[in-house]
């Protein structure tokens, strides 16, 4: 716990560097990643991230020491080259884009590893720590690196801020963007350049191998909470920054731990929580919604069956057995029983020694379902000229969906009809 306070008091200037550095690196890649995510080019980031490795190694071989600016330059060059090659391969041969991405990614990475192992065996003492670029090491950021990264992060964030409208248009409607006269190719080029830059500095935090996660995962998580793009980009930045902070802390308390994977595990956890728990788009929310709808359909069908039984005998408040209900409609026995019990709880049905009967509210609700069913059948036959023997199934579905407003309009449109196409009476109050 002591280390926790020591770390989060930010008293030590080294800790301040590390924290500011990780926040900038992760947040800026999350911001740029939001747009590649929306453009459905998420895996391109993965290719760039792996392709950066040979550039870093090459500039080290040529320059002979770990100068951050030179390394960034080399990384930028091969990262860019990889994107151009993917484009050339997929547009000038029958090889598909995903194959081209996988090919360039793995071959560039292989070349990078080949160079890295040669450097490691060359005995140059300056190379120690060069392999940290593979899995990232937030804790080793020092003042000098920080200035370079801060400048690039600032460029990234400011460019996104300035070109926010253009990037948004490009992500959602490229055709429209070019119609209103935007230089689509130039904007695309800018976005690509920003992606490469984001990767180049992001790998300092999470490393080459897992960089793709920093571009994709915050954006994917943020997408589940909002429909608004500006909110989404903000959320992605916050999620990214939070994972970066956690990563810096872990790096601080356990220096032997690889930082990148921890950052990725934190951001993935946020993403999984979002996938399941987010309101409206989350998996649990939608599953729950579907269950509610299924229940509602089941219950309305029970009330409808009871109403039809009442219609036949002209006695709506008669007590019925489960067997009688089953003569009107086939129910799954288990869901029929739970449905009956639920309807009783909600005050639509009464129960006396295994016999079920309508309450006033229950009869009203059953009557409405029957009415909607018959109105819709009539609408289909009158307005869409569908044969009366083909309209039942459709009406069986729509009767649960029609709102009171649509109900009123249907009544008006059909001029308050009294019978449906099968000559059954349409019940009004």
């Amino acid at each position, binding site marked *: 716990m002591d280390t926790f306070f020591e770390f989060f008091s930010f008293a030590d200037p080294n800790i301040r560097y590390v924290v500011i550095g990780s926040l900038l690196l992760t947040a800026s890649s999350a911001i740029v990643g939001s747009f590649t995510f929306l453009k459905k080019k998420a895996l391109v980031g993965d290719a760039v991230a792996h392709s950066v490795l040979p550039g870093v190694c090459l500039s080290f071989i040529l320059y002979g020491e770990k100068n951050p600016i030179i390394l960034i330059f080399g990384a930028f060059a091969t990262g860019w080259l990889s994107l151009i090659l993917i484009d050339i391969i997929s547009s*000038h041969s029958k*090889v598909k884009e*995903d*194959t081209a991405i996988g090919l360039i*990614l793995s071959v560039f990475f292989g070349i990078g*590893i*080949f160079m890295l192992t040669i450097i490691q065996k060359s005995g140059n003492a300056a190379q120690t720590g060069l392999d940290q670029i593979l899995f990232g090491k937030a804790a080793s950021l020092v003042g000098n690196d920080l200035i370079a990264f801060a400048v690039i992060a600032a460029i990234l964030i400011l460019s996104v801020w300035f070109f926010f409208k253009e990037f948004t248009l490009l992500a959602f409607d490229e055709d429209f963007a070019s119609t209103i006269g935007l230089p689509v190719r130039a904007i695309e080029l800018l976005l690509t350049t920003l992606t490469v830059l984001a990767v180049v500095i992001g790998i300092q935090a999470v490393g080459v191998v897992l960089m793709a996660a920093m571009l994709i995962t915050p954006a*994917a998580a943020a997408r589940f909470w909002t429909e608004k793009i500006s909110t989404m980009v903000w959320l992605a930045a916050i999620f990214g920054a939070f994972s970066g902070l956690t990563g810096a802390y872990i790096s601080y308390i356990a220096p032997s731990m690889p930082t990148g994977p*921890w950052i990725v595990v934190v951001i*993935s956890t946020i993403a999984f929580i979002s996938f399941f728990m987010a309101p409206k788009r989350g998996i649990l929310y939608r599953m729950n919604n579907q269950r509610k709808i299924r229940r509602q359909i089941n219950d309305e069908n029970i009330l409808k069956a009871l109403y039809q039984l009442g219609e036949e005998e002209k006695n709506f408040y008669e007590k019925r057995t489960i067997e009688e209900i089953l003569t009107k409609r086939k129910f799954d026995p288990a869901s029929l029983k739970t449905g009956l019990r639920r309807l009783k709880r909600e005050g639509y049905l009464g129960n006396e020694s295994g016999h079920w009967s309508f309450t006033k509210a229950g009869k009203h609700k059953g009557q409405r379902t029957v009415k909607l069913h018959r109105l819709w059948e009539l609408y289909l036959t009158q307005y869409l000229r569908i044969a009366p023997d083909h309209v039942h199934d459709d009406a069986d579905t729509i009767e649960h969906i029609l709102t009171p407003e649509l109900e009123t309009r249907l009544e008006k449109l059909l001029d308050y009809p009294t019978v449906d196409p099968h000559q059954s009476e349409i019940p009004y109050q």
Partner: protein
Amino acid sequence: MEALQIILAGSLVAIACGLLGCFLILRKMAMVGDAISHAVLPGIVLAFLFTGSRDSVTMLIGAGAIGILTTFLIEFFHKKGRLQTDASIGVTFTWLFAVGVILISVFAGKVDLDQDCVLYGEIAYVPLDLWITDSGQIMGPRVLYITGTVLIILIAFISLGYKELFLTTFDPAYASAIGISTAVWHYLLMGAVSLTTVASFESVGAILVVALLIAPPATAYLLTENLKKMLLITSLLGVVISAVGYYLAAWFDGSIAGAMASVAGLLFMLAFLLSPTNGLIAKHRRKKAILKPSGV
């Protein structure tokens, strides 16, 4: 002798990966192969922790199961969570790979794996790691037996299921119409990819498997239109990649797996430029020939 053993191991791995890769790239699933090869890592580490060795059936089965779980998760997030496919792939495999690397760090003392091994394997140690029977007889490098067995299983799988794989790849609608389940063959193929990745892991590492899964089939794809020929060319390329890669690595004193991936990339580039049917140069010539008819 050592060189021969390493080249042989490399060839076995490259052929196994290449054969499966052919189906992956034809099904536009190259990136799913990439994802699986990363995602089996936690499976490998966990199986290692439980069984204490690398050459157990448990490990193959455990990691194979994780591979299938990966495919399942990718589809689950895509269908149930309505996440776009590329993001679904990206989120799933980076997460599993990160978990794997962390497990290696946490159990560093107990697991005979390190981060370098994850990235580019230890194919140079193949001749040192011998299989010695209980009676003390030396049977030769252990890796050769493992990758050899996996390759035999794969060849059996592909030849027995050739018709089904062919149809589900090129005409899934027709395949379902004549009663071949596309889902079953999809998962069988993914299981095979996981198995091969795990078996190749020691030799070339988790990431360079991808180079062998994708590059040789993509090269062969530019050279032929026939699936059987494509499988054959891919296998030949595997042997070439392994041999040239070994000598390249020996010359520069670098990682053999890295050199193999570089050679694989180089071969693709050659095919991309020089293929008689699909090469850039041949296409350019044909274009010229059309514009300027001969004999005029």
